[in-house]
């Protein structure tokens, strides 16, 4: 990356949900940097905290959830220091979020343009009528929808078209960071590909950074530049898509990659044994240790920090020292 400064900086962001059973630490001091034009994929087991992180960056966590610490910057603006009113303006114009299942939450009785207009008014109340209309047409065109879609109702559109509308809403005010939460999990592969191609083009036009949240590793391999693997509210590894798919370092990331079906290994299933940990009673040390084939003594007590290893890789695992070599303890384990 030649870009000098990151467009998004997340520093030690922490979120808990206060449930009857106790405090669930859903996001545990997570940090992340993204540069303009970068595409990051965020993956990890269901319930590991991906949507929570997106919502926290948007400052949209609702009770019983609470943001308990950390900072989020988009460019020079510290979102976490803004007033509620300022934050409302920042949403959609600095950072936008296309929620999980968005296409099914379009209002069935409102025309598409009405929904888009409401979105703009919510965030930029002073924008003129003519300008709003122009923005709507522009946004629709950039997701390859004809202008007359503005006059339609959601039920008149196919799944792929509805998902395009949601992307159009997300880019109405040309944000610098776009977070798309599982944007294509309900779509067939052809439509998926078309929607992702659109997102790709829109992102290039805006020069924005994109965070794609999802389970589909195939989609990640095809679309993103970097992959961040989350486990129990923490990043375990952040690497370039090539490194992640060809040489994942963190044992959980490796197990995830190895579980993927390919054309060559038909009928071989390699799920990761064991269950995801409870966020209320997280295992001490490395949260993955009860399921990790490489777990050592230290893993049970000391939480590994996300360290920068050579090759611009970030890995949180006691197996490696800062040079990316196996530590002595790890070598002893391996015999």
């Amino acid at each position: 990356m030649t870009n000098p400064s990151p467009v998004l900086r997340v520093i030690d962001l922490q979120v808990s949900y206060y449930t009857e059973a106790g405090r669930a630490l859903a996001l545990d001091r997570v940090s992340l940097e993204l540069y303009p034009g970068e595409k990051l994929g965020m993956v990890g087991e269901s319930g590991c905290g991906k949507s929570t992180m997106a919502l926290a960056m948007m400052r949209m966590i609702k009770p019983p959830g609470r943001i308990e610490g950390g900072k989020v910057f988009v460019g020079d603006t510290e979102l976490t220091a803004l007033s509620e009113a300022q934050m409302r303006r920042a949403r959609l114009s600095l950072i936008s979020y296309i929620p999980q299942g968005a296409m099914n939450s379009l209002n069935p009785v409102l025309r598409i343009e009405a929904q888009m207009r409401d979105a703009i008014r919510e965030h930029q109340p002073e924008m003129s009528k003519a300008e709003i209309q122009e923005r709507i047409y522009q946004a629709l065109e950039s997701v390859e929808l004809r202008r007359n879609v503005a006059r339609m109702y959601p039920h008149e559109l196919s799944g792929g078209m509805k998902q395009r509308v949601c992307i159009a809403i997300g880019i109405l005010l040309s944000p610098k960071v776009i977070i798309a939460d599982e944007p294509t999990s309900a779509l067939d592969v052809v439509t998926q590909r078309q929607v992702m191609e659109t997102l790709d083009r829109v992102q290039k036009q805006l020069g924005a950074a994109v965070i794609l949240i999802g389970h589909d590793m195939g989609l990640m391999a095809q679309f993103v530049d970097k992959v961040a693997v989350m486990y129990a509210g923490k990043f375990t590894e952040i690497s370039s898509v090539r490194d992640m798919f060809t040489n994942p370092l963190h044992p959980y990331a490796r197990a995830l990659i190895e579980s993927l079906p390919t054309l060559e290994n038909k009928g071989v299933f390699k799920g990761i044994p064991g269950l995801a940990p409870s966020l209320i009673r997280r295992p001490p040390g490395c949260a993955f240790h009860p399921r990790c084939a490489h777990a050592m003594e230290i893993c049970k007590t000391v939480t590994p920090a996300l360290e920068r290893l050579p090759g611009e890789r970030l890995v949180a695992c006691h197996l490696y020292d800062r040079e990316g070599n196996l530590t002595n303890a790890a070598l002893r384990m391996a015999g």
Partner: protein
Amino acid sequence: MTPLLEFRNVTKIYTKGLLSRAATTALDNVSLKIEDDQPTILTVAGESGSGKTTLAMLLLGFITPTRGQILYKGKDITKLRGEEKITFRREVQAVFQDPFAVFNPFYTVDHLLTVPIDKFKLARSKSEARDKMEEALRAVGLRPEDVLGRFPHQLSGGQRQRINVARALLLKPRLLVADEPVSMVDASLRATILESLRNLNREYGISIIYITHDLTTAYHVANSIIVLYRGSVMEAGSIDRVIREPQHPYTRLLIDSIPWPDINRKWGQTEIAAREQEHGSIETGCKFTSRCPFAMERCRQAPPPLYQVAPQQVAACYLYEQQPIVERERLSEMLPA
């Protein structure tokens, strides 16, 4: 021998409410057999709105065909009564797409599993019921002590989807319809759940209809596949043939659009000719004409029949008209068990 399940020229047309003019042909003259003595896993694939869920709902008797018949063990399912109906309800089970929608948030997992046990009198005692419940949970890779007693919101999406599968298994169905059963879980859990489905198929001889967008996993579990496009069968056959050597232009586009988790295999070599259409257009010929790069004059005039393009593969496309025609009623003979 009488097949376990038979679709005879089934068509489903939805005539919509006040808002819209056009009727939708969600399923168009589909014939299909699942044999009792050859348990199989059949994948039904196709784009959004191609009729997959309609097929599942018809099969379960939740909706009735506009034309044609659906037979279970030789009997029309709309005419089942009394004991036969109860047997059908037990022997044909479904796992649906959305694990969030299915469960009542006020009941624990135990309740979800004991209701079917009581309803179908599957156990004679409380302890037998408990044993059955635990057995079903273990079959989908869950530890009973981890999940029993919990409420749905205390479980992850993947756990919920598996409890859904466990519930279906408890009933030891003859036929299981799974409509996107793993859409919400990560790759590793997907592998675990699909493996438990495949084991069921092998160990208990349960046939499975696996409805999915995910052709990668379909390739790994299924024996055969039917590809639908706007309610019509475009291509069908052995899963190996269809995924490795798709013949129909739509299937080729579909297979080429699979995002393989392999950075050296580039996505989408085939250009996508036309974009997705708005609903409701009515055509007389091949339904894929408007998007097909090979479309010819005759494609617009009449829908193509199924041509046999390999021993276990048929394609509904005029590009193969030198090949022998397979009547729609004989589709199942092209599907390996």
